[in-house]
């Protein structure tokens, strides 16, 4: 009697994870060993870095939108705060990004708190609109305070050469390991959220707010916590973005195409899953690199957005639960008409 349905059920429910550990080890080994492969060059490593950074950003968005169901359409806000905070502190006051990253995090938490407190008690559409409004506002601020931010042209880090203290490097390789660390840490955080009470609360709120409250879940508090966690994760990855690219501008931080790039990994790979953003981010960057390559050859611009649009359309039509959804018994069951 004591060996009831749940303990057995729990192992059955988590069975896919056992296989995923192996895939994880292989993926990490592949990424970590990349610089030692014979065909590796700075371009290939830089693409891998971009991939890892966008996976990390996608993992952060997945927390609030995938697990929590809050559609943040302007998550570039937190990416931008992570970039600009670390960049400005370094350029103006020679503050190392090891500290700047925390400044970005604190700022992001503050902005998320205000945004959340104002909108998360209302219907979800107000939160989505607020993220867009704050994106537009920060875009204007970044363009206006030219002395600090470089205005429209953006902010370029003063380059000091290789320096661990200032997180600068002539080659992309150190950022490969930094990016890999982020992705592993964020994977672990996602797993942790999904397993803990917070994850069960977030999923409950995502599925049905009134039912969640009737199950004892503090709906507003749950939404706010998910948003804060995601904001801080995005901002930290933003600082890594800044150090790796050495520059940021208002369009790259707060623009529409960036906002879409933050959402695509989880949407393609599978919302609310721990592997979704990893698979989706990989596909997104591979696709974007090949279109960049193709469009330069052909001499046409803006193809990447078109390709993203088509990709998203394909996902919505053929795999509404993302690529992970194709392998998940439950989503297949749940989506049966």
């Amino acid at each position, binding site marked *: 009697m004591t060996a009831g349905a749940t303990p057995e059920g729990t192992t059955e429910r988590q069975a896919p994870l056992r296989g995923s550990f192996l895939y994880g080890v292989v993926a990490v080994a592949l990424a970590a060993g990349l610089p030692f492969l014979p065909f590796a060059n700075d371009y290939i490593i830089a693409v891998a870095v971009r991939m890892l950074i966008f996976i990390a950003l996608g993992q952060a968005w997945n927390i609030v939108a995938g697990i929590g169901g809050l559609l943040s359409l302007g998550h570039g806000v937190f990416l931008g705060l992570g970039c600009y905070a670390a960049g400005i502190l370094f350029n103006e006051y020679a503050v190392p990004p090891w500290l700047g990253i925390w400044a970005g995090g604190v700022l992001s938490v503050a902005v998320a708190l205000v945004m959340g407190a104002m909108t998360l008690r209302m219907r979800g559409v107000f939160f989505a609109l607020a993220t867009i409004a704050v994106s537009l506002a920060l875009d204007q601020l970044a363009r206006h305070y030219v002395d600090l931010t470089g205005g429209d042209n953006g902010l370029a880090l003063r380059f000091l050469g290789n320096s661990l203290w200032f997180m600068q490097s002539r080659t992309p390789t150190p950022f490969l390991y930094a990016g890999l660390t982020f992705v592993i840490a964020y994977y672990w955080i996602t797993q942790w959220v999904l397993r803990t009470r917070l994850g069960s609360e977030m999923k409950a709120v995502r599925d049905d707010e009134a039912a969640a409250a009737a199950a004892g879940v503090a709906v507003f508090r749950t939404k706010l916590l998910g948003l804060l966690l995601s904001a801080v994760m995005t901002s930290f990855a933003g600082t890594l973005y800044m150090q790796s690219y050495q520059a940021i501008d208002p369009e790259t931080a707060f623009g529409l195409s960036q906002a879409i790039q933050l959402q695509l990994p989880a949407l393609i790979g599978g919302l609310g899953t721990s592997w979704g953003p990893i698979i989706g981010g990989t596909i997104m960057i591979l696709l974007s690199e090949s279109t960049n390559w193709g469009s330069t050859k052909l001499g046409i611009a803006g193809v990447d957005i078109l390709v993203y649009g088509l990709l998203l359309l394909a996902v919505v039509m053929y795999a509404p639960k993302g690529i992970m959804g194709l392998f998940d018994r439950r989503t297949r069951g749940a989506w*049966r008409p």
Partner: protein
Amino acid sequence: MTAIALEVTHIAKQFGGLVALRDVSFRVREGEVMGLIGPNGAGKSTLFEIVSGNLTPSSGRVAFFGRDCTGDPAHLRRRAGLCRTFQKVRLFESMTVAENIAVSARQCVKPGLDWRVEVDAILRRLRLEPQADRMPAEITLADRKKVEIGRAVAGFCRVLMLDESLSGLTHEEAEEMIGEILALNHDTGITVIVVEHVLSVLAAMVKRLVVLNNATVIADGTPNEIAHDPVVIAAYLGTKASVLR
């Protein structure tokens, strides 16, 4: 003398110009199984929304075991043991049956107790063990209603409010459901309030009925008294359903 588990006093609720509830008052004693009936649109579900904290009343008070909880948010009332189901079943569709029950078990289980053990106990009590790992979309309506009851009582429950848990079920399913509900009341002492719109279903199940019609209480008594109450009969004459069928 038993305690008063739930007391609503002078509850009123307007939706714009529409009066959904007008001066509704009654008490439910601890351990009682009470039926709340009334034709469609009488205001039964609205009353549940107010008692559970989903809606704020235009006026009036709700007291739970003598404590005024009119201003408390819904999740705190649930954690205090004021539990409910929804007329249209609302499960977490992305979670399995066991996970649905686990949500409230994790929120409401008393400190020192293991929520997993509680989930197992609920699954066993409601005979949902074979369905534990199924998705809500894969099970029957009767089982979905049972899961919702399980989620409503998991962890800690003192008053259980059921909104039309029997409607839409076959005769056998309804009989089984009544059995489960009465057993829950008998074994754990949970106070139960059952909403239905026809009396016949509840007549054998409860000793006391409150009748809501046109936003207000028109009768309060035993099923036998209610069935012969001229005011109640008159109220039901205007509707498609008769009191007794």
